[in-house]
Structure formats: C-alpha cells, structure tokens
C-alpha cells in the first residue's frame, strides 16, 4: 500500500471534560483537495491547527508523507496555512509578507526574490508588491494570503475558512481561483469550512464532522446522494431537509414507505432492509416532485409561503401540522399557487432508522 500524503491515526483532543476530537482516522492522498465540513464547534479547526503544530494532540498521531509530526515544531513541518482573517503582517508590504517565511527559513535573498515575483505573477498581484495590507481590498488580501502559502512550496496547504470574510460575489470568484490554482499546483490541500456549497464545489473528497467524530468520508456527489446518516443529509441540504415519520409496508415482492405527505414505493425493494417498521424519511427540497392542482378535491397541502430565489422558488406548504419545503423551477410555478401535491414517483428518498442511521436511498417508483 502506498503511504498517503497525510494520515490521521486515532487522533484525539480534549479540553477538560469536553472531547473535541475522538479517535479520528483520515487519509488524504497526494495532490488531493480534501475538505473538512462541519458546523462550528465540530473540531475541524482544531484538527487543522494540530496538523499545523499550533496545538498538541492528546492521543494518536498525524503523519505527513510517512513522518510522524508530533516531534516536529510548526516551522519544521513544511506546511503552509491560510487563515480566516488572512493574518497578514500589517507593518510589512505585500512583498515582505510573502518573503518573510522564506527569509526566516534561511533562503538566499536572490532565491527569495525570484520565488516571490514568480508567485505574485501567478496570482496576478505583481502590481501590489509595494502596498501594505490595509491598502488592499478583501479579495486582494486573500490573494496575498494564498501567495504567502504558495511561495513556500510546502508539502501541504491548510486552509481555515479562507472565504468566510469575503462578500458573496468575491467569494465565488476566489473559490474558483483556489480550485484552479490547486489543480495547477497539485499540492495536497486540507480545507476547512462550514459551507456545504464550498465543500461540494471544491472537494475531491470530503469528510463531514460532527461533535468530534467523522460522520462520513467520500466524494461530494456520493455523500450527497447517499448520506450516511440524518445529520449528514441535513447538513448537505439547502435550505433544509424535510423529515417525516414513516412506516415500512411490505407486500408480495413490493415495499413502500408511508408518510404524512404520501407513500413512496421502492423500485426494487432491498432484502437488506430488515423489519424496522418505524422509520424516519428524509426528502431534500430540490428532490421532491410536486404538482399544483387546481381541483380542490385532490388530496393536497396548502401553500403557506413562497420565497423566490431567482431561477428557483422555495414553496412552503402545510397540512394538519405537517410542513414541507420544496424547491421548484421558477417557470414551472403557476401564478399564485394555492395547493401543492407531492407526486410520489421520482422523488429521492432517504430512509433512516430511529437513531438517524441511513438504511436506504432510492428514487421512488
């Protein structure tokens, strides 16, 4: 087996009684863009800081290209980090900010100069080298922070929510740039975020974390299609996952789940699904098929609220205390819809047991 670029082996961290990270195992391949996704307080930033050497581990070990990192001080780890607030030195010019680490690592002046200019050209900040951080826009500061990481030519990039201080428009631009840059440089990257869009768009693979534990590891599309548990499904849903209580009904060769908003039939019922009759059923707003009946006699939900998002519209409907949020294409929405019906066929259904563990994912027949 080839040693992965980065390996977390049973990593644990506690603050007093609180377990921040618990027996964490992860492997990141050479050149991979790996995203740690999770809510604030899930331990993802702690993991990043431990990798950088800014915090110590209580248990386990982190290996970079097969070398245990614990005995190595931060400056010896050949790791560069991009911080949430950029952490540029305010009293230094852009050039000095980028050159500082190289000079501290005792590179020669001429070599440093060449590296800094090459990296600045790569990032399109060559004209800003003599400016100071406070004279730059947020996007430019972010680029300098990236430059400071790249210029060192490290074995690993760590990025701690690097886009969270940018406004929406710049964020999308810089996100694309980061992705392109990483593709080009092929440096192993560990990227922390709480934003599922960033995780989905950037990651080669990702790990979803909650309360110090890995919930699921995989390619974004696989995690999205088959979330391992209700938490992951919920976290990757936008705006939110619809969850209903359901009961499993089996007949000869067929199976279906009955919920308050409709009954969803399995296309080919899996035999693995035991006999838990009480289930939790998750449906993402964008994965529910709906129609807007005019006829009042059809069973339906009453539309409560409409939230236009541009090309998509969120419709919130309710019946007998059961609420459902669906996302539909704006041009498929009739003027002033009053009634909404869930079409049982063609919905992506996620089944969880009472404890939230995923049992099956299927497109209803």
């Amino acid at each position, binding site marked *: 087996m080839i040693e992965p670029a980065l390996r977390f082996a049973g990593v644990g961290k506690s603050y007093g009684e609180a377990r921040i990270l618990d027996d964490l195992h992860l492997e990141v391949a050479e050149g991979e863009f790996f995203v740690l996704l999770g809510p604030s307080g899930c331990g993802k930033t702690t993991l990043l800081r431990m990798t950088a050497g*800014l915090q110590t581990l209580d248990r386990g070990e982190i290996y970079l290209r097969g070398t245990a990192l614990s005995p190595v001080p931060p*400056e010896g780890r050949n790791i560069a980090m991009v911080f949430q607030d950029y*952490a540029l*030195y305010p009293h230094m010019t852009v050039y000095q900010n980028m050159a*500082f*680490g190289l000079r501290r690592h005792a590179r020669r002046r001429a070599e440093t100069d060449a590296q800094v200019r090459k990296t600045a050209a790569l990032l399109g900040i060559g004209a800003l080298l003599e400016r100071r951080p406070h004279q730059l826009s947020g996007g430019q500061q972010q680029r300098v922070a990236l430059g400071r990481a790249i210029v060192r030519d490290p074995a690993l990039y760590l990025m701690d929510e690097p886009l969270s201080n940018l406004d929406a428009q710049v964020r999308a631009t810089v996100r694309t740039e980061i992705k392109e840059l990483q593709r080009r440089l092929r440096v192993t990257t560990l990227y922390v975020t709480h934003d599922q869009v960033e995780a989905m768009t950037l990651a080669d693979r990702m790990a979803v974390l909650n309360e110090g534990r890995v919930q699921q590891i995989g390619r974004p599309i696989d995690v999205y299609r088959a979330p391992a548990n209700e938490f992951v499904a919920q976290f990757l849903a936008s705006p939110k996952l619809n969850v209903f209580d359901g009961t499993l009904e089996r007949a000869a060769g067929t199976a279906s789940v009955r919920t308050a908003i409709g009954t969803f039939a399995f296309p080919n019922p899996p035999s693995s699904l035991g006999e838990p009759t009480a289930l939790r059923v998750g449906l993402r707003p964008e994965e529910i098929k709906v129609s807007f009946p005019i006829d009042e006699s059809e069973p339906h939900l009453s539309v409560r609220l409409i939230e236009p998002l541009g090309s998509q519209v969120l419709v919130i409907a309710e019946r007998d205390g059961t609420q459902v949020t669906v996302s539909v294409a704006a041009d498929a929405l009739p003027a002033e819809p009053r009634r909404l019906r869930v079409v049982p066929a063609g919905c992506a259904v996620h089944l969880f047991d009472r404890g939230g563990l995923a049992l099956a994912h299927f497109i209803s027949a």
Partner: protein
Amino acid sequence: MMRRFATYAVLVAGLFPLLLPFYWMAVTSLKAKRDVFTATPQWLPLHPAWDNYPLAWSAEPFGRFFFNSIVVTTLIVASQLVLASLAAFALARFEFRGRRAIFWLVVAALIVPVQITFVANFMTLARFGLLNSYLALVAPYAASAFGTFLLRQAFAAVPRQLEDAARLDGCSGLAFLWHVLLPLSRPTLIAFALVAVVAHWNDYFWPLIVTNNNAVRTLPIGLGMFVGQEVTTDWNLLMAASIFVSAPMLLLFFLMQRYFVRARLHTGIRG
C-alpha cells in the same frame, strides 16, 4: 464655519497662558540683571544681552552636566524599553501560573508615588557604596510599571492568528516579539519613550539626593545651583541656562511629534 472659528478661538486662548512662561523665560534670558525686575513689565529686551549665555554656561560645568544627563537619560530609557518589552511580552502572550497576579502588581505599582521608594533605595545604594555614580541615578528607574502596562495592552491587542502565522513562518518566541509585536506597537513605543525621556531629563529630586559631586550631577541640579547659593539669584543667567537645558526637549518633541503622527498612520491594524 462659525464652529471652526470658535474652535480656533478657544485653542488660541488656551495657547496663550501655556506659551507666556516660555516667552518670559526667553525675554528674561536676554536682559541685563538690573532689568529683570522692573515696575512696568518689559516685554521686549531693549538691549539683548547675548553675553548671558556664555556666562551661564561657564557659571557651572554645564558641559559635564549635559554629558551626564544624556548618559543617564539614555541608559534609563533604553533599559525601560528593553525590560518593559520583555515583561509585557510575557504578560500578554504567555500562559503561566500567577500571570494575573503579576499584572495586577504592575498596575498597583502605578499607584505608588515614586517618592515613597526614595529612602529605601537611598539606603540600599549607600550600603553598597554606590552613591555618586551613574548606577545610582539609573538603577531605581531601570524598570517601568507604566511602560510595562502600556506595552502589555498593545501586545495583547495583536490578533492570535498573526502569532500563528508567524510560528509557521519560523518566527516564534523572541523573534515574534522583535519582528511582529514591536514593529506593530511602534506608536506606543514612541509615545512611551517620549514621556520617559522628558521625565528623566527633567528629574531633579532623585539626582539631588544621590549626588554631591559635579562628576555625576545632571542638568536640573546645575540649574538648581543658580538659586540661593549666594544671597541673590541671577535670574537672567538662570533663564539663559533654562533655555539651553530645555532646548533639547523642545527640539525632540517638535521632531518626534511629526514622527509620532506618521507612525500612527502607518499601522493600520486589521482585526
């Protein structure tokens, strides 16, 4: 417009009582002895007596006093900057047992009038036979609670992420203090150094107590020697001496004030 005018009117009015003593000092320094006290105030020196300056300079060994004042002030301020920086660094950026207690002791030291320490310090120095030495003038002021407090506040305001970034750049401990904290705290350092220089250049009481020898006396003592040692005081010579004693401070303040403003503009610390 009216508001601006009113502001300046107040400022000018406030300036007048501040500048008057300086003006009177300058005018008196150029008067003949008989013109110092007159029935009607003499606002301009009618016959400027430039001779007062060389006379005053040679009345006491002012060359020696100048040298002593420069040495003593420089040693005190340099020592205060070094010790305050190191103490503030520890108090602001390290976790250790008793950190809060020590910080409060520093703050408490701000409240204690310096005169209270004089007797104890004098006795100590006398026992060691160190009176009439530069050490006696410098040692009691080598550390400054005020400077430690000011710098601790400045260092504590530097964001944690900058320290993290510096560590990854191979810059921890004293290198972080030197390359990041101190440059970022330049306005505070300059402001504190200015206050300290002026305070110790002008200090009279402590040097008076621990010196009785011209070899180590400082300028304020030299000025004091004009007063009361004979029956009459040569006020015109005293004022001339006061001019050249205070001139370096006025010059320093004038130069550093511009530097001070510039230093402020250059440190845009983003949170």
